[in-house]
């Protein structure tokens, strides 16, 4: 019911815009009278491509003439029945990688993808190496600390394996409360 209403709405819009197109050029938002599905597909592709002559402006947001032409081309290719990937590939071929908004994963530009990975691994590796170095000098391996002697915090508790852990935690909390972390 709702869907048919939507279609009715869109039909009305299409009719009005079509008549507008006859009278005044074309509807700037749907010059090729795409179906709603095709329109959604067009927006989907537009949000993955970037204006080639601007900085950081997505194709769907771009008011340049070159972007309008690109959007037209997407519409036309959709009408020809091309898939999203085919359309994007053809754009890269014709307009260059600059429209992708990210470095292509090939050649020298592969470096853009590898470097962050290397940095993360090297950074974490360095931290690990440092912490290993620091801990190695410890006289004994890390084992659970013995239960804290009964203090204020532990006064209400009864001894038992489970509560010992609790006590250790509370001792830590209290100590940190004092420590004013």
């Amino acid at each position: 019911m709702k869907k048919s209403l939507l279609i009715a709405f869109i039909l009305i819009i299409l009719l009005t815009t079509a008549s507008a197109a006859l009278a005044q050029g074309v509807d700037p938002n749907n010059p090729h009278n795409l179906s709603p599905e095709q329109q959604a597909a067009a927006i989907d592709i537009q949000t993955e491509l970037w204006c080639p002559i601007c900085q950081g402006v997505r194709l769907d947001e771009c008011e340049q003439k070159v972007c309008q032409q690109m959007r037209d081309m997407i519409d036309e290719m959709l009408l020809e029945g091309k898939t999203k990937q085919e359309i994007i590939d053809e754009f890269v071929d014709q307009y260059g990688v600059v429209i992708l908004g990210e470095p292509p994963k090939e050649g020298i530009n592969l470096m853009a993808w590898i470097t962050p990975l290397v940095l993360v691994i090297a950074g974490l590796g360095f931290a690990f190496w440092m912490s290993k170095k620091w801990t190695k000098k410890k006289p004994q391996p890390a084992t659970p600390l013995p239960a804290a002697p009964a203090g204020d915090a532990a006064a209400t508790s009864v001894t038992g394996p489970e509560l010992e852990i609790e006590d250790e935690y509370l001792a830590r909390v209290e100590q940190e409360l004092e420590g004013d972390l």
Partner: protein
Amino acid sequence: MTDARNDAAEKSSGRGGIIMLIIIAVVGATLFAVFYYGILHPPSQRADSGKAPDFSMTTYTSEPLPPDVLQPALVDLFGSNYGRYCVDDVNQPRPKDYDQITIKLSDLRGTPVVINFWASWCTTCKDEQPLLESAWRHYQGKVMFLGLSHLDQDKNARAWLQCYNVTYPNALDKGGKVYNAYHVQGVPETFFIDANGNVQDYFVGAFPSASVLDEYIQNLLHASAPQE
């Protein structure tokens, strides 16, 4: 805490500190290298002298667009009174000499070449195109003209060429390869290549008048003249 352990602690964190400083120094040096390059060779430093980067181009077909395609394309590019820009008969065919042929710049050695980067979406290119076409008609035989359309589409570019009845070879600069090789900054831009294949001069933006363009071509011819 024994002294031995203390020493070990000092040594290890000392080494960690040194390694950290070395890492920072390497990162800093890399950054400076990038900045140094960025300033010395700004991202778009034109190929403004020396050997002109070679390229080959496959020209647009000179087959005229069907009128029902041409007319809306012209309206889109030039507005409904496109006649203001275009030749009287936009449907007239363009010469077949350069119909989908491949031209290589290095094959033109011996002839001075004018390379014009343009685009159908470019506004200022509209003022320049008739000047280029008439210069070509005037110097044809002495100077070769090549047009490369940047970030363009077959239909729009062909409509444009028909509008001005452009008769020198024009091609799509596929993927912006030539544009990048010459480090062009925007359209229109024009490069003048002498008979030896060196960039003799360049012009940024649209030529303001036929005489300015003419002056550049005269200079090009002069520079290309045999040294005797």
